[in-house]
């Protein structure tokens, strides 16, 4: 019953389990937390290592001797310009204020996604499950397509890009400087279990924009009485302060931190309950209301509070989410830290819905069809657009300057070695 009990698989199973438990890369020869392997917390989750046998070489570090002889920060810019003898990194990146993007998030941040074609018999074909091994070894998350650190083009046809790709477009020196420190089921309570997987050296690395986006699990759980298990505002305050103090001792000076509020998840029930779930589309026999009730009965509902027919419970969940968002807002307004400044941003699902409707879409199209819970790729990228525009408008210093050498970097280094 347990494939890992086979002697020849025991060792590799142990390594895989450790990688999943610690959120550290499975394959990381030099133990610098960056990998040349895509899944199992590899470069789908943080910038690809360009030398996995040297722990002083990894994305996001300040260049060693202006990368005259090697690409110490893996941004694809290195060597000396033969015309004038100046290292390219110095020429193109000095003073450009490079920075990385780090997401501390949950399943939404890691982009949890189960493709509907895995469940819809009429759409199933030989190609349907081609991504299943990748998805399983990425914990059913698709960080390579996520709104914060995604580096692949959207599969949904939407033009909006991830924050990482926007930062990279703004300054090509930021190439590969992304970390998705997210986990399914993550909340303010359990972040301490995997925050150590974050890699940033205060002395050696560039500053970073850190986004804290635990958008649901402090109010979401599958208990029969979910309210009892929700994080209280006092608990949240304490948890967040611990996280922020930890970050203050690890982030390079000049970093920025954005705290995301929690959404009002009542839209889940309102927009889905009478629609057919992918499993019910063939015979018109399974609605989302039935799926939510089945999950609650099995006590595996990811959010009994919002994915419930009980209106009072949905309202209570929203009230607690609002209280938690207010706590985050207060922390952002009052607390000061040495190495980063702090901002708060609402999780503006209403704004996204409005924008999507303007484009001719329907609100239910913004929710993951299989789980009926997570924001899908379109919703996440629309949210990124709101994030970016608000940053440009209110706090442009967070995004840094536009690098005037971008086109020259492109000319000399092409795709900079890929992500």
């Amino acid at each position, binding site marked *: 019953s347990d*494939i890992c009990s086979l002697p020849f698989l025991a060792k590799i199973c142990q390594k895989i389990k450790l990688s999943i438990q610690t959120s550290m890369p499975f394959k990381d020869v030099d133990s610098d937390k960056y990998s040349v392997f895509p899944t199992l917390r590899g470069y789908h989750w943080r910038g690809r290592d360009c030398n996995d046998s040297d722990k002083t070489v990894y994305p996001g570090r300040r260049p060693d001797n202006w990368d005259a002889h090697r690409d110490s920060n893996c941004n694809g810019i290195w060597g000396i310009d033969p015309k004038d003898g100046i290292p390219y990194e110095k020429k193109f990146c000095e003073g450009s204020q490079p920075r990385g993007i780090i997401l501390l998030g949950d399943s939404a941040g890691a982009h949890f996604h189960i493709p509907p074609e895995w469940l819809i018999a*009429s759409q199933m074909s030989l190609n349907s*499950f081609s991504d299943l*091994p990748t998805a399983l070894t990425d914990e059913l998350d698709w960080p390579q397509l996520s709104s914060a650190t995604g580096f692949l083009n959207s599969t949904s046809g939407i033009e909006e890009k991830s924050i990482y790709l926007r930062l990279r477009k703004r300054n090509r020196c930021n190439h590969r400087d992304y970390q998705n420190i997210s986990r399914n089921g993550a909340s303010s309570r359990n972040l301490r279990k995997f925050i150590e997987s974050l890699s940033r050296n205060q002395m050696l690395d560039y500053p970073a924009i850190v986004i804290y986006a635990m958008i649901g699990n402090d109010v979401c759980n599958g208990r029969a009485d979910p309210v009892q298990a929700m994080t209280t505002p006092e608990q949240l305050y304490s948890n967040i302060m611990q996280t922020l103090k930890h970050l203050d001792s690890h982030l390079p000076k000049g970093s920025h931190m954005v705290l995301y509020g929690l959404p009002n998840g009542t839209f889940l029930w309102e927009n889905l309950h009478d629609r057919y779930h992918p*499993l019910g589309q063939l015979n018109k026999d399974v609605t989302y209301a039935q799926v939510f009730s089945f999950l609650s*009965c*099995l006590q*595996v509902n990811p959010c009994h509070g919002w994915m419930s027919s009980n209106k009072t419970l949905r309202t209570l969940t929203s009230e607690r989410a609002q209280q938690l968002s207010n706590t985050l807002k207060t922390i952002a307004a009052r607390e000061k830290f040495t190495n980063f400044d702090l901002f708060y941003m609402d999780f503006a699902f209403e704004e996204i819905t409005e924008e999507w409707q303007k484009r001719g879409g329907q609100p239910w199209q913004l929710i993951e069809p299989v789980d009926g819970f997570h924001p899908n790729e379109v919703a996440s990228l629309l949210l990124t657009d709101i994030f970016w525009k608000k940053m440009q408008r209110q706090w442009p210093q967070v995004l840094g300057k536009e690098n005037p050498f971008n086109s020259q970097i492109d000319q000399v280094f092409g795709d900079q070695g890929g992500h």
Partner: protein
Amino acid sequence: HSNGHRCLGCVLVMSVITQLAQVHNSTVEASMERLCSYLPGKLFLKTTCYLLVHLFGSDIIKLLDADMNADMVCHTLEFCKQDSGRPQCHLYPLPKEAWKLRQEKAKHTVKKSENMKYLKGG
């Protein structure tokens, strides 16, 4: 929650098998074969699928051919269990016939199954 996840997984897979048979107007056996053939070879996915068909296939065929739905199959194969004091969990609307009566029929269908004896033996 592992019991819940096991039950959920079983109901999803049984639903897909049933619907594949319906879409392709094929037998349950062909539908299971089809599902396994769609899976990639990596991570032993195809092998595991064929192994599961080898283990449970004959019972699944008997139950689905006897017009049992995914909920009933998973309860009968004991992937879903009703804990004492907890309600009977089901994804599909309950059949007109009483659940208990139907479950008795389903159990009778796989009474002599070697796999059921194996499962019950833990």
